[in-house]
C-alpha cells in the first residue's frame, strides 16, 4: 500500500513540476515565471539600485569609464574610439536587449519564430519587400569601409559581451513572458535595424490606391481629387532653382495613352501616415543666447521601451551627446562641442511598382523590352513556432523583387505580379553620416557627412558655434518625370524605369539665409519651379505655422523655443473655421446641436488638452469629408486613395462651388451651405456620445498612449492628458508624436534640453522605464550636458561603471 502511495505522490510531484514549467495545461508556465530566484521577480529592480560596477571584458583595447546621471544617461569616456562603440553596444544590450532583438526580427520577417503562424503575413510582406536582401547588400558596402567595419564590429562585440553574461534570472522580462531566448548580435542585425527605419520613414506611397482612383474616376476628376500643386505651400527652400544642370527626364511617349488597369491588391502593412517631424534653427541675429538655436522633434510611433537611448560619447577625438538607436552605434540626433544637427523625414516617394508579365507558370522568364529575361529566385525560409517551415519563393527581376503575386494577396489575382523598386534596395553607407556628424566641426564637415544619407532621405538642419546655420534636404532621390511612379508602371518597358538620381548640386539647401532661420515640417522641399517631379502628398500645415512664428521672432531664447516646440495652435482650423462659420446654417440645427455649434464658434483654435471645441471641429471636419466625397466613392474599388489631408480645405478656399459638393445621388444641386449644415448634423451623434462619455475634452477624445512594443497594456502608459495633434507643432496624435524633443543653443556656452516619452531602462520592472513620460506630457525638458571628465565629478552623476580589458 505504502509503495502505491509513494508512486502516486511522486507522480503528482513530477506532474506539478512539468505543468508549472510548460504551457501545455496552463496559459503560462507559472512555476517558471514566478520562481523568485529565476522568474519575473528577478526583473523587479530595487528602487535604490546601485549601478556602480567594475567590469572586465574581452575585446576592449583600453579602459572605459561610464558615468550615469540621475536619469541613467551614460556619459562614456573611452581611450580608444572603437571601445566607446563596444561599450555603447554593451549598454544598449544591458538596458534594451529585448527591443533591439525584437525589432531586428521584425525587420527580417522572423516574428513567426516566436509568436507562430499569425505573424506569417507580416513576415512574408517583409521578406518579399526584400528587407533581408537590402540589409545584406548594405552590409557589404558597410563592411568594405574599414572605419565603419571597425565601428560595427566593436558595437556587435559589446552587445554579445552582454548577451554572454545573461543567465536564466537576468534574462529581460519579455523573453521570460513570451518564452524564448536572445540570439547573438551581428553586423547584419545592425544593417537590418537601419532598414527598419527606412521602412518606417521611406516606404510610404499609395501607388495601388492611386492607380485604382485614376481608373475609377478618369483623368479629369482624378486631377481635381489629387491636385498636383498645393496653393498654401511654403516650401522648405523657397525661391527659384537654376535648372541648367538638371538631368532631363521626360515621360515615355506611350505614357499619355496608357490607362492603368484596376488592381485589387490588398496591402497588409503600411508604415503609419502620421510619422513626420519638425526642425528649425534660428540664426544668432534672432537669438538672445549669442549663438544659433537648433530645435528638432521627430514624430514617430510612441512606444515603450522607447526608440531612443540618450548617451554621451567621448573619445580622444570628439565629444558628442544626443540620442542613439538601440541596435546601432553612434549618436543619431544631437550635438558636439562645435555643431548641432537634427532631422525631419524627407517623405518623397522612393518606392514604385512595376507590373511583371511572366512567360508561363514556372515564372522562369519575364517580358522586358520585347525579349524574355531570366528570373532569379530567392528562397525565403520562414520558421514558424510549432509548425513546419514555410518557404517563400520570391522571383527577382531587373526592377527588384516581386512583392505581390497570386500567392501573396488575400484575393488571388491570377497571373498578375508586381515587382517593387525601392531606393532602400540600393546599398548605402547611411551609418557613415552619423559617424562623421559625431565628429564634425563645421558646415563643410556636415555637408560631407550628410551626403552618405541615401535612404531614408532626411532634411538635415545644422547650427554651429561659429554662428552658421543651414539645411539640406538630403537623400537618394530618383529624378522623376511628372507623375512617374504615382501609378503602377509596365515592367516590360524600360522607358518607365528610373533614369537616374537628382544630382547633389540640385539638392534643395540653404546656408545662412537672409530670413535668419531655416526650417522644415515635412512639407514639399521646393515649389513648382523645381526641375523634378516631387510628388503630391506633403503635409502643409506645420511648415506654415513654423515659418510664420519664426518670421515674427525678432529675438528669442531657449524658453521661447520650448514654448514653440510644444505649441498647440491649430493652423488648419484657422483656415477651415471661416468656411464652417460662413456656411453652416445654425438656424437649421436643433437646440441641442446649437449648444455644440456655439462651443465650436467660441473655440480659440488651440488644441489644448481641455479644448472641447477641437473635438467638435475634428468630428465636423471628418463629417464634411464624408458628406462631400462619400457619394462619389460609393462604388469605388476597396483599395483606393482618398483625397489627401488638406485637399478639401484648399478646394473650398478656392471654390465654393467645388464639383464634389453636389451629392450625385440626388437630383438637386446641393450648395456648400447645405453640405456644411449636413456635416454638422452628421457629426452630432458622435459629439453627443463623446460628451455623454465625458470624452469631449480633446485629450480625452484623442486618448494618447505610449504602447509597449508587444502591445501589453500593463507595460504601456495610457490615457495621457496631452494636447496637440495632426497639423499642430506639438504633433501628438493617439499613437504618434514627438518621440524626442531637443533644443540646443550653440552660443559661447552650449545650453541644451531634451525629453522623450520613455526612459533609459527597457525593463518594465524599473522606475527608469517610463521616467520621463510625465515630463514629456507637461512639456518639460531635462538639461542635456556634455560632461568633461577632467573636471570635478559633475553633481548630476550618481553611478560609475569601470570597464577594463580582460
Amino acid at each position: 500500500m505504502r509503495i502505491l502511495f509513494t508512486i502516486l505522490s511522486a507522480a503528482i510531484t513530477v506532474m506539478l513540476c512539468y505543468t508549472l514549467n510548460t504551457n501545455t495545461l496552463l496559459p503560462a508556465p507559472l512555476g517558471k515565471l514566478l520562481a523568485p530566484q529565476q522568474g519575473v521577480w528577478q526583473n523587479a529592480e530595487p528602487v535604490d539600485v546601485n549601478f556602480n560596477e567594475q567590469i572586465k571584458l574581452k575585446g576592449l583595447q583600453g579602459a572605459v569609464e561610464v558615468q550615469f546621471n540621475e536619469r541613467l544617461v551614460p556619459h562614456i569616456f573611452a581611450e580608444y574610439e572603437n571601445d566607446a562603440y563596444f561599450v555603447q553596444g554593451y549598454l544598449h544590450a544591458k538596458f534594451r536587449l529585448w527591443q533591439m532583438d525584437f525589432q531586428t526580427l521584425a525587420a527580417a520577417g522572423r516574428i513567426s519564430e516566436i509568436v507562430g503562424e499569425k505573424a506569417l503575413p507580416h513576415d512574408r510582406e517583409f521578406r518579399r519587400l526584400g528587407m533581408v536582401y537590402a540589409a545584406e547588400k548594405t552590409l557589404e558596402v558597410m563592411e568594405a569601409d574599414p572605419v565603419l567595419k571597425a565601428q560595427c564590429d566593436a558595437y556587435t562585440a559589446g552587445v554579445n559581451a552582454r548577451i554572454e553574461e545573461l543567465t536564466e534570472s537576468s534574462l529581460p522580462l519579455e523573453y521570460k513572458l513570451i518564452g524564448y531566448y536572445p540570439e547573438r548580435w551581428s553586423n547584419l542585425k545592425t544593417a537590418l535595424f537601419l532598414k527598419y527605419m527606412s521602412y518606417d520613414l521611406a516606404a510610404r506611397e499609395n501607388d495601388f490606391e492611386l492607380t485604382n482612383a485614376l481608373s475609377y474616376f478618369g483623368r479629369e476628376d482624378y486631377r481635381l481629387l489629387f491636385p498636383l500643386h498645393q496653393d498654401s505651400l511654403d516650401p522648405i527652400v523657397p525661391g527659384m532653382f537654376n535648372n541648367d544642370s538638371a538631368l532631363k527626364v521626360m515621360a515615355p511617349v506611350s505614357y499619355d495613352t496608357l490607362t492603368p488597369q484596376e488592381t485589387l491588391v490588398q496591402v497588409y502593412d503600411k508604415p503609419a501616415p502620421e510619422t513626420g517631424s519638425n526642425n528649425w534653427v534660428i540664426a544668432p541675429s534672432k537669438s538672445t543666447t549669442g549663438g544659433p538655436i537648433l530645435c528638432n522633434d521627430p514624430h514617430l510611433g510612441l512606444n515603450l521601451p522607447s526608440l531612443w537611448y540618450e548617451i554621451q560619447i567621448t573619445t580622444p577625438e570628439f565629444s558628442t551627446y544626443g540620442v542613439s538607436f538601440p541596435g546601432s552605434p553612434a549618436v543619431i540626433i544631437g550635438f558636439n562641442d562645435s555643431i548641432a544637427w537634427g532631422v525631419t523625414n524627407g517623405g518623397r516617394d522612393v518606392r514604385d511598382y512595376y507590373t511583371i508579365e511572366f512567360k508561363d507558370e514556372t515564372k522562369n522568364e519575364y517580358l522586358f523590352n520585347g525579349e524574355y529575361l531570366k528570373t532569379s529566385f530567392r528562397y525565403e525560409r520562414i520558421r514558424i513556432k510549432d509548425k513546419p517551415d514555410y518557404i517563400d519563393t520570391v522571383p527577382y527581376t531587373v526592377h527588384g523583387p516581386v512583392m505581390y503575386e497570386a500567392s501573396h494577396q488575400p484575393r488571388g489575382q491570377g497571373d498578375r505580379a508586381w515587382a517593387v523598386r525601392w531606393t532602400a534596395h540600393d546599398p548605402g553607407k547611411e551609418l557613415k553620416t552619423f559617424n562623421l556628424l559625431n565628429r564634425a566641426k563645421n558646415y563643410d564637415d556636415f555637408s560631407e557627412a550628410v551626403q552618405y544619407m541615401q535612404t531614408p532621405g532626411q532634411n538635415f538642419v545644422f547650427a554651429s558655434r561659429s554662428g552658421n546655420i543651414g539645411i539640406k534636404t538630403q537623400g537618394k532621390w530618383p529624378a522623376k518625370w511628372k507623375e512617374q511612379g504615382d501609378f503602377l508602371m509596365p515592367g516590360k518597358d524600360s522607358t518607365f524605369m528610373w533614369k537616374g538620381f537628382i544630382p547633389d548640386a540640385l539638392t534643395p539647401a540653404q546656408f545662412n539665409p537672409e530670413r535668419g532661420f531655416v526650417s522644415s515640417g515635412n512639407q514639399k522641399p521646393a515649389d513648382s519651379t523645381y526641375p523634378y517631379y516631387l510628388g503630391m502628398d506633403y503635409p502643409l500645415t506645420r511648415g506654415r505655422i513654423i515659418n510664420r512664428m519664426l518670421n515674427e521672432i525678432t529675438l528669442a531664447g531657449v524658453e521661447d523655443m520650448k514654448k514653440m516646440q510644444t505649441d498647440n495652435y491649430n493652423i488648419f482650423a484657422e483656415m477651415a473655421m471661416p468656411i464652417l462659420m460662413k456656411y453652416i446654417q445654425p438656424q437649421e440645427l436643433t437646440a441641442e446641436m446649437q449648444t455644440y455649434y456655439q462651443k465650436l464658434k467660441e473655440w480659440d483654435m488651440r488644441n489644448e488638452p481641455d479644448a472641447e471645441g477641437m473635438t467638435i471641429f475634428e468630428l465636423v471636419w471628418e463629417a464634411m469629408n464624408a458628406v462631400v466625397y462619400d457619394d462619389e466613392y460609393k462604388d469605388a474599388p476597396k483599395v483606393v486613395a482618398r483625397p489627401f489631408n488638406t485637399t478639401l480645405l484648399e478646394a473650398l478656399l478656392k471654390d465654393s462651388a467645388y464639383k464634389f459638393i453636389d451629392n450625385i445621388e440626388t437630383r438637386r444641386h446641393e450648395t456648400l451651405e447645405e453640405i456644411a449644415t449636413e456635416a454638422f448634423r452628421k457629426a452630432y451623434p458622435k459629439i453627443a456620445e463623446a460628451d455623454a462619455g465625458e470624452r469631449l475634452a480633446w485629450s480625452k477624445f484623442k486618448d494618447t498612449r505610449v504602447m509597449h512594443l508587444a502591445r501589453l497594456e500593463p507595460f504601456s502608459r495610457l490615457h495621457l492628458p496631452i494636447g496637440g495633434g495632426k497639423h499642430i507643432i506639438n504633433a501628438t496624435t493617439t499613437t504618434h508624436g514627438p518621440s524626442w524633443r531637443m533644443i540646443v543653443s550653440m552660443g559661447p556656452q552650449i545650453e541644451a534640453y531634451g525629453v522623450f516619452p520613455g526612459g533609459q531602462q527597457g525593463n518594465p520592472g524599473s522606475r527608469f522605464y517610463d521616467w520621463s513620460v510625465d515630463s514629456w506630457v507637461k512639456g518639460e525638458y531635462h538639461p542635456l550636458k556634455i560632461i568633461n571628465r577632467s573636471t570635478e565629478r559633475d553633481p548630476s552623476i550618481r553611478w560609475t561603471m569601470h570597464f577594463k580589458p580582460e
Partner: protein
Amino acid sequence: MKWIITVLLTALLSFALCLFLPWWSIAIAAFLVALLIPLRPWKSFLSGFVALLLLWGGGAAWISVENNHLLAGKISELILNNNNPIVLILITACIGAVVGGFASLSGSLLRYSVHKP
C-alpha cells in the same frame, strides 16, 4: 523541534539548489530532506509546504517591497487583469508550497516504504 529543523533545512537547500539549477530543483530539495529526516507523512507534507511557502512568499515579498511593488503590479495586471501585488505574492508562495509539499510527502513515503518504523 525536528519539524522546524526540517522546514529550515528544506528552505535552505531549496535556496541553495536554485542558485545553480532551475526552479523545480525545490522538489529535489524537499524530497531529499524528507528522505533524510524521518517525519510522519502528513507532517512531512506540511514541512515541505511551509518551507516553500515561506521561501517563495518571503522571497517574492522582499523583492517586491524593494521594488515598491512596481513590477508585481504590472504582472498581476497581466496575469489576473487586476493590479494586486499581494495576490501575486500569495500565488507565488502557494505554487512553491504545493510543489514543496508533494515532494516532501514523496520523500517521506519512500523512506517509510523502505524502512518500516
